[in-house]
């Protein structure tokens, strides 16, 4: 890559690369309320006490811990993925400070410094409606524009949500992802901290995307974010979440649970670009329900992490519901992106589409693992799945594991297609013949390959993503 280009890229948040030199992490944060390593009922009680939680939440946590302890690792994936996890060696709660900050000026300098280097303030200057920036496991900065408050929109970190809207959360929590859904959902339910709680009242359309940044910044600290987003009847919202994390030697662990509720006629889009450092295990359970004529869309980008296991799902519960997943995965050296999507058609006249694009490079392994299920009685269903994989060299890996399960015949149409291949020599040759350098030609093709995803993103994200891909691909020629 030319030196000019590097300068341009330098301004953009190349978040994963060369952290020590570029950003000088990690900052000396005082862990005021560090809990001990490992997870036990005592630690759970301590977390709950620190957060001043109601009794039902403590019970929920303790109950989840029992479930976690009794559950085995998932068996459908080779177990080596889970071998690295030492549950006893993780911190389950760390707080960066006592105080919540709703004004930028009040945020401590060292934390602000970190965010500044990540470009958070810029993003805010431009378009942020509210920032819920999670530093360590607790939300330290939270800002909601007044107009949103006026509309009755609730956009809080999850802890504050519990304090202020406990009854509402109690109604929705674990309704889509039960505590016993999988081992990691159980662990999250036991020791969640941070995340967002969003409620959009009936008929309210939130014009600007709601955004939350959060990150991991201490060795072996697991982040267990819990997010619930409710779009009430006829409401509309676009929520954007991005993760960044600096590199440390020990395996970091992130297991989130995200539940989306789209009531009748609602529109809910959840966009996430996850760019964890390459030592993070990112095991997230994401599930949504779409009621009558509602639409749920997951835009899911996975670039970093050592291993990602993430299968956003939409339960199409009532007639007219629509589900859509567009995802990209980029597996570089040593990385495994095991991502996909699930669509459960439980009602007639429902439609869904899944577009999954993956790129494997430098020996990385990317997999698509998905499910299309059409229940008995769900007639007049249409669903399309497209997964395309690009292998940039001859030792990277790509797998496709779709499952289709159909139990209804009336006017049901299920299509699944997948292709795997490389960038054709002819394409590169054609671009070169037009005077484009080979590495730029390859980048053009790759950017074209993931365009279906990038075109769905706000401009700033799309630009950043393209730059990230460019940096990931450095040195891929020759």
């Amino acid at each position, binding site marked *: 890559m030319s030196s000019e280009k590097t300068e341009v890229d330098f301004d953009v948040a190349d978040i994963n690369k060369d952290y020590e030199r570029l950003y000088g992490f990690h900052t000396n944060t005082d862990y005021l309320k560090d809990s001990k390593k490992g997870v036990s009922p005592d630690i759970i009680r301590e977390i709950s006490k620190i957060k001043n939680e109601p009794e039902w939440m403590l019970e929920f946590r303790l109950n989840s811990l029992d479930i976690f302890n009794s559950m085995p690792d998932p068996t459908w994936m*080779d177990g080596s993925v889970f071998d690295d996890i030492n549950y006893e060696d993780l911190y389950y709660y760390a707080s960066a400070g006592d105080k919540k900050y709703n004004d930028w000026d009040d945020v401590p300098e060292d934390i602000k410094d970190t965010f500044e280097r990540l470009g958070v303030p810029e993003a805010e200057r431009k378009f942020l409606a509210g920032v819920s920036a999670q530093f360590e496991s607790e939300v330290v900065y939270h800002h909601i524009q007044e107009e949103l408050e006026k509309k009755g929109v609730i956009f809080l970190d999850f802890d504050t949500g519990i304090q202020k809207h406990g009854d509402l959360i109690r109604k929705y929590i674990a309704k889509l992802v039960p505590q016993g859904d999988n081992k990691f959902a159980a662990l999250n339910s036991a020791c969640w901290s941070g995340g967002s709680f969003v409620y959009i009242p009936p008929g309210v359309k939130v014009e600007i995307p709601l955004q939350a940044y959060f990150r991991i910044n201490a060795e072996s600290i697991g982040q267990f974010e819990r997010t619930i987003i409710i779009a009430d009847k006829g409401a509309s919202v676009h929520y954007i979440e991005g993760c960044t994390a600096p590199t440390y030697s020990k395996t970091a662990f992130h297991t989130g649970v995200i539940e989306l509720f789209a009531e009748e006629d609602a529109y809910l889009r959840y966009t996430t670009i996850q760019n964890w450092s390459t030592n993070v295990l990112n095991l997230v359970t994401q599930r949504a329900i779409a009621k009558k004529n509602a639409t749920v869309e997951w835009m899911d980008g996975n670039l970093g992490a050592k291993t990602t296991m993430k299968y956003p799902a939409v339960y199409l519960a009532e007639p007219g519901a629509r589900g859509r997943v567009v995802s990209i995965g980029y597996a570089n050296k040593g990385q495994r992106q095991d991502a996909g999507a699930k669509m459960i058609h439980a009602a007639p006249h429902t439609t869904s589409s899944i577009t999954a694009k993956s790129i494997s490079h430098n020996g990385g392994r990317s997999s698509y693992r998905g499910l299309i299920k059409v229940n008995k009685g769900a007639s007049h269903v249409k669903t399309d799945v497209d997964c395309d994989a690009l292998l940039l060299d*001859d030792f990277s890996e790509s797998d496709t594991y779709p499952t289709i399960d*159909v139990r209804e015949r009336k006017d049901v149409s299920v299509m*699944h297609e997948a292709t795997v291949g490389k960038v054709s020599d002819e394409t590169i040759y054609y671009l070169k013949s037009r005077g484009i350098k080979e590495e730029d030609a390859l980048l053009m093709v790759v950017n074209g390959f993931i365009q279906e995803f990038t075109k769905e993103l706000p401009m700033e994200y799309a630009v950043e993503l393209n730059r990230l891909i460019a940096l990931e691909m450095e040195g891929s020629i020759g």
Partner: protein
Amino acid sequence: MIQSLQQKKLSELNAVELLRELKKADPSHYVSQERMGHVERALELPLPGAPDEAWRRVPMEGLNFESRPIVPPLLETRLNGKLVGAGGTNGSGLPAGLTVARVPGELDGQTYDAFKAFRERYSLLFEQRRRKNKGRANDVRENKFLSFAEALAGDSLFVRSESGTRHETPLHVSVHNTTPGSVGPAVVCIHVCENSRLSLVIDYQGTESDTVTIPVIKAVVGKGGELRILRAEKIADDSHLFSHEFVMVEEDAKLNSDGVFFGSKATMLEGLYSLMGRNARADVRGLVSVRGTQFSGQKLTMEHNAEHTYSDTTVKTVLYDAAHSLFAGTIKIPAGSRHSEGYEENRNLLLGDDAHADSIPQLEIIENEVKCSHGATMTSTVPEEVYYLQSRGLPEAVAERILVGAFYREILEQMELVKEDEATRNFVATALREETGLELDPSAMV
């Protein structure tokens, strides 16, 4: 001792008792090391199921196969309708260059060497493929049924076509389980030698009530050789069929493996097709028709273990009533198998109100200089098409039959033995008529 034990006590011993007897036998004398391994695995392994995504969907209720008496199925070989190969001599109606023998019962000096050569080649290729492939969740693994058949099949059938000989008329092998309540293991070994062509029709029958048939086909298609197989199943609704088909295809060799499946309480085929040499090619086609509460499953693994290999898998399924079908196809292209092409297609036509179709088309690719794709669809008949035919005066049921016939014909036309051999064509048409009630004109399948 084992031979006499099998003959004397077969009807009295159930599977577990027999396996224990075998385990007690002196391995140096009676049982090969390999077979001993199968005996142990057949005893120790659980029934196939999770985490294998295909096997875990196979209904196994009421199988109780370990307590059933073991009765090896009847193995008959026919050429042009006449029994051949009986007694294991080549003088009994077999053309020159074609050997059919029972192993070990009928091995003489020459066939012993031939069988030994097959065994060695097969083991070598199998080991090579094992080393090439990285372990994955749904791999073809040790399987109780497989080990069971290998351990307990009495005489296995050995078919070999000599180098340079061509056998266009299919040899018809029927594997017939005739004893109600029994479990019948059978092994068929096939060696297509260099530049030779062999055609086979393999016909699994378990028309008696409540049988379990466990056939295993092991084949090597030598350099430049060609193997064409057509499998047909005719199993009673309360019976089970768990078959394995492992084929090693060498350089410049070609495999056509076609199947016509009709389901039963549970029929499952685990197929492993391994392309072991440059320019090897495999075409696998299946036609599945299930009705009532039948289950039919195919787990097909296509391994491209060499450069410039080509594979094409197509399975078309029609589901009536409350039938359940499963297609699990995997294409594997390990590192180094450049310029390979792998295609896989699964089409399902759901006609029953309570039908249930599962499709798991998978790709595992570790090489970028490849072309690879898969597709799966699940649809019912298109209302417009039915309406069009009705508007021409056809009742709805007839219109549907015509559309199903067209759906089948597409795949039948691609089956090489159906295309080229009239007797096979008639055989398939008869089977289709008997099992599905569908009248297809054999001459229209060409």
